[in-house]
């Protein structure tokens, strides 16, 4: 009986197990425990949440491996961590300590402005951000096992995540209506491999799990993304920048499961305390935007 480790099925499979769930950003063991107790399907171990990265500026890098390991030891759910775009050594480090999932993330300062990580070389699965179908398929071609919308991280503003999810869904619908011979030019225009474009047409969806991320702050935000077709949600700054993280986290978990039941969303949305303040995206300058980092 030969065992096969790190196969496509095993890597994409973990993402499939996260569907319908909420992945929460945490910066300490204490926050990770709160997230697990509130029903998170996984936690993202970070040094700083996106809102603080945005506020403090400077170069944002992979978290201290000691912090990541402490969080891995503290919870029984999968633990993810972020690496800079193109920084394959940060990814090697996280794989070496046994991380469950790596986010090659635009939230950190990119290490390579041209190349993303060759993710096929790793046994650990990767998630990458995308604003449209072309970006999503390029990341999948590089070996990503999961896609998420980029949104605009650390803003508490859902508008960009909505834009990106709608864009991906619209482009998938467009491909489904195309004839086979039209797919070649479409692949060229998307900048994506023809095989993946054909697969999208056949499946009517991305060949990997597609989560929403960037700006989700309320239960209704999470349910909105689910109704738009997301397979699940990441909540970054929205939980631990609010006044009652535990209650808000539980409410977002419930609203993600019962995304199509407004009565339940209404009930769990009551008296959650103050939410994170949020930023109007139009007040950000071009170089303050994280979503434009590396396509």
């Amino acid at each position, binding site marked *: 009986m030969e*065992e*096969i480790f790190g196969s496509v099925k095993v890597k994409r499979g*973990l993402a*499939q*197990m*996260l569907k319908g*769930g909420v992945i929460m950003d945490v910066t300490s063991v204490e926050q990770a425990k709160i997230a697990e107790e509130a029903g998170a399907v*996984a936690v993202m171990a970070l040094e700083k949440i996106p809102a603080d990265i945005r506020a403090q500026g400077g170069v944002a890098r992979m978290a201290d491996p000691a912090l990541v390991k402490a969080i891995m030891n503290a919870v029984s*759910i999968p633990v993810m961590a972020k690496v800079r775009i193109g920084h394959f050594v940060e990814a090697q480090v996280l794989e070496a300590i*046994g991380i469950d999932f790596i986010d090659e993330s635009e939230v950190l300062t990119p290490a390579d402005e041209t190349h993303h990580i060759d993710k096929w070389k790793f046994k650990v699965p990767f998630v990458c951000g995308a604003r449209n179908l072309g970006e999503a398929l390029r990341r999948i071609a590089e070996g990503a096992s999961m896609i998420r919308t980029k949104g605009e991280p650390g803003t508490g503003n859902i508008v960009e995540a909505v834009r990106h999810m709608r864009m991906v869904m619209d482009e998938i619908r467009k491909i489904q209506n195309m004839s086979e011979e039209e797919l070649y030019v479409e692949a060229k225009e998307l900048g994506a491999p023809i095989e993946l474009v054909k697969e999208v047409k056949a499946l009517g969806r991305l060949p990997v799990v597609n989560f929403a991320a960037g700006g989700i702050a309320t239960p209704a935000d999470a349910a909105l993304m689910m109704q738009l077709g997301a397979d699940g949600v990441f909540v970054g700054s929205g939980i631990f920048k609010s006044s009652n993280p535990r209650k808000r986290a539980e409410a977002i978990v419930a609203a993600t499961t019962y995304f199509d039941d407004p009565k339940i969303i209404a009930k769990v949305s009551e008296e959650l305390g103050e939410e994170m303040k949020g930023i109007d995206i139009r007040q950000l300058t071009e170089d303050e935007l994280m979503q434009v980092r590396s396509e």
Partner: protein
Amino acid sequence: MKIGVLALQGAVSEHINMVKSLGVEAIPVKTVEEIKAIDGLIMPGGESTTMGRLITKFGLENVIKERIKEGMPVYGTCAGMILLAKRIKNYNQFSLGILDITVVRNAFGRQIDSMEVDLQVKGLEDPFHAIFIRAPVAIDLGSDVDALASLEEGVVFLKQGNVYASAFHPELGNDPRIHKMFIESVKSFLNK
């Protein structure tokens, strides 16, 4: 015949597609009323702690237990197996307490230890290509629990009365034999 897949979280659509490919109706279920109206229940893989919390928060515990008592067949994969167990080693978390087993969570290690392997399964002629993802195993099986497949770490497929549980994920592959086995038990439940 209508099979429900518990749709609180996890690999729901994969099970639905597998059951549908066998010509049987399958729907996601997440309310008491929906669970009352099905003939068989699949509890999918996902995060057992998350699903456990949602089962208690939204009052689904009693209806699932009652339906199992009535004889409705249930099949739990991975997290589903954990949620059906009587005992969970080292973790203090919710479970329905149906299967007389002790579940060891993450028995193989972390995600990098997740794997595919060919398994000998009792009742199946050829080996079953099984996909394990941060999988549990069962140990300390009660006398009325049948071990149907095992690895070094413990039992990975088992049956107790009308309840099946596997540590691996047949819904991620394209071999329908285990789902067929389950559908057969739903058929005999309906014929009773």
